[in-house]
């Protein structure tokens, strides 16, 4: 199972919106439609921010949203804030209890 493909970095100014893509194949993202996104600040454990492609856990800001088109999932952060500066990882289920991750995207808030 190959890793998912994410851009290495994205940036945006406070108040703007950014989108991070996560590209897989028809054998993972498209067939199982199970994608989660995690936010990780330096030195901290990852935090779940999106599951089941579009769902937000309780307590996660509505500024975070997820979507999917074909074999590409996307995370959109609207109204960028300084605290959004972090690494973001996508993950997908590929069957038989196996999970794959993207390489991660570093978000810089300018």
């Amino acid at each position, binding site marked *: 199972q190959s890793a998912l493909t994410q851009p290495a970095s994205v940036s945006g100014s406070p108040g703007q919106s950014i989108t991070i893509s996560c590209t897989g194949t028809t054998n993972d993202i498209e067939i199982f439609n199970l994608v989660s996104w*995690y936010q990780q600040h330096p030195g901290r*454990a*990852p935090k779940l921010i999106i*599951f*089941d492609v579009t769902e937000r856990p309780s307590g996660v800001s509505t500024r975070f949203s997820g979507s999917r088109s074909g074999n590409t999932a996307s995370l959109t952060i609207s109204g960028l804030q300084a605290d959004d500066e972090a690494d973001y*990882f996508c*993950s997908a289920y590929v069957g*038989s209890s196996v999970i794959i*991750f993207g390489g*991660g995207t570093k978000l810089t808030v300018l």
Partner: protein
Amino acid sequence: EVQLVQSGAQLRRAGESLRISCEISGYNFATHWITWLRQVPGKGLEWMGRIDPRDSYTVYKPSFQGHITISADTSITTAYLQWSALRASDTAIYFCARWVKGPTFDYWGQGTLVTVST
């Protein structure tokens, strides 16, 4: 409150054995699989494997099969990750997490840094 508390940082030599732990509290330990993930500092996350605490059934990522062992002790609500012979390439931060479904892990431990010297 759900909590996963991991054991502290470890320094070992290549070839040595090691077991790190993840103590779970705040929910019924038997109701959720526990998974382990690796993160080389400055790099991405890698799923290693998971265990069902009810029957200790385990699934490993093929690249880790035979190199690691995941176990659980329901009497003390603790999951473990162990190596019988560490390699320098095992140097990383290891996280335990509670598995909900698919690629969804809703609670995480704080991470354990394992450093393996040659």
